[in-house]
């Protein structure tokens, strides 16, 4: 028993256990994002139903959809890249979610920052492009080329907005931005300080979520849901999971940049749901633009509003 007495137990107190907390956060954050995302998907479908004077789906509909799709007994795979593409699509958003600070959890936000987050949100589109490419369905190819064109369109105003916000706060760190906004109250929120950038950001959000005026790459009646055309069973289920993460990421990013993040979960979730409801409400009264019209519109109006906003911020 000599070796036991030789162990210096005093040293245990000095061992850093903070990494355990980080691991817990990295597991919890995507899980919370998924559950909140299910709620967001439900809200979008309910809004669509109410605007059409329908009752809409029951409360747990998004969950049943995902379970059902994964429980399909025959799955049509078009090859390895098809499957990896879906993994990339979900994985990109899971990584993005760990970079977004939420009340009580910072995850990797201190280490990552805004630029890393932007990179992560582009991975899903590229993963989807790989996966759809292997399906060799012409509708899918048209859809994914439109999706990437749409990304090119809304990324210009988005990058301008991100630049303006980062310039205003003097930092690319999301934790610092939230702290600065919460210290000064509503008067220091991004939406009060930079209303033009907030407006341009809302435009970019509409394109990012691919909602109706800019729904060019889904277009069910035209190219049969584009990238999703060959996706059945677990592949479509994976995309439904991705949609939950996508809505959550977009909503939380906007809340963090312009609405002061969240002091606690109640106000935070309220803000996220309100922000995500705006694009859907706008979407239901619009038809679809053509691809070139969307690019032209995005490179003209939100870009101009964003540049004007930057001029005010730099003043």
């Amino acid at each position: 028993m000599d070796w036991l007495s030789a162990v210096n137990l005093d040293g245990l107190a000095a061992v850093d256990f903070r990494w355990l907390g980080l691991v817990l956060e990295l597991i919890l954050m995507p899980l919370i994002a998924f559950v909140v995302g299910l709620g967001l998907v439900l809200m979008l479908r309910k809004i669509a139903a109410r605007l059409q004077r329908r009752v809409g789906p029951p409360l747990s509909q998004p969950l049943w959809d995902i379970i059902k799709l994964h429980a399909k007994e025959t799955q049509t795979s078009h090859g390895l890249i098809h499957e990896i593409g879906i993994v990339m699509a979900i994985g990109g958003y899971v990584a993005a979610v760990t970079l977004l600070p939420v009340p009580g959890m910072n995850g990797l936000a201190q280490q990552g920052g805004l630029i890393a987050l932007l990179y992560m949100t582009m991975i899903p589109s590229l993963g989807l492009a790989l996966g759809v490419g292997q399906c060799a369905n012409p509708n899918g190819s048209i859809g994914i080329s439109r999706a990437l064109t749409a990304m090119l369109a809304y990324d210009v105003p988005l990058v301008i907005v991100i630049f303006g916000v980062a310039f205003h706060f003097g930092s690319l760190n999301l934790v610092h931005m939230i702290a600065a906004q919460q210290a000064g109250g509503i008067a220091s929120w991004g939406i009060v300080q930079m209303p033009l950038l907030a407006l341009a950001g809302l435009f970019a959000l509409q394109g990012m979520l691919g909602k109706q005026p800019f729904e060019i790459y889904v277009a069910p009646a035209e190219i049969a849901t584009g990238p999703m055309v060959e996706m059945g069973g677990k592949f479509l289920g994976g995309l439904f999971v991705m949609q939950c993460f996508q809505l959550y990421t977009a909503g939380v990013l906007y809340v963090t940049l312009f609405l002061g993040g969240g002091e606690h979960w109640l106000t935070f979730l309220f803000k996220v749901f309100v922000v995500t409801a705006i694009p859907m409400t706008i979407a239901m009264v619009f038809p679809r633009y053509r691809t070139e019209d969307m690019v032209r519109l995005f490179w003209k109006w939100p870009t101009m509003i964003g540049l004007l906003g930057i001029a005010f911020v730099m003043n």
Partner: protein
Amino acid sequence: MTHIDQVPTPGAPLPVEIGVTPGAKRTNPFAQVFDELVRFAQSRSLFMLHYCTGCGAVELPPAMTARFDMERLGIQPMVSPRQADILLITGYVSVKTLKRVILTYEQMNSPKYVIGICSCTVNGGMYWQSYATAKKLNDYMPVDIYIAGCMPRPEAVIEGLRGLIENIRNGRADAWKDYYRRYDHYLGNQQRLFGADWQTPTDVIAEARHYDLFGPATLGAHTALLEQHQRPLEALAMRIEIPELMRRRSRADQGGTAQ
């Protein structure tokens, strides 16, 4: 091919596969809970591909929109066969249409359900004497539910869908397995209409083997005939044939040589 033309005697029980009890429970209690959950999810979430061939399609918009709202039951329209669970045939199927319906059906992922709406899918309806109309849909693919009427009102359509939901909950909606287990029967009927060299892009026999759905009647005289004519599928050649573009290109070529 004589036995295909046999007409079943009225009132006789339908042939049931021996050893396969509908809704059979697994012994593991956890597996039972899991199966129950999956069946519930499958019954509460149905994506519908409507193949609108006839006048019955008129009754679907009211069933989907504000008045009757199918989304309450978790039923929503989808646009591609890969995503769909239900194939809704609304009206008569002509010989030419039936080919497309079968291609669509074979591309769907199982479990899949077929619903025949209107009398035309049941027995040909008012097209009984037509030379170009397939009379009974369930000769060519297994049908889960027929909704008779000319045309059935949206209430009847929703009542039929509720029946399907009930069947899925009880594990009785497994007609899709019949297509794999008795493929020879269905293929025989298809060959009778479309000719001996009828072939679809989906290899049903290989799928039956892969998913362990092989039955004693999967192979037979008709699948042997299929194997004689079967050509291996090849990827389509990549080429663009836009007349406008080709004309412009040839004109440019001529201009180039003239200079």
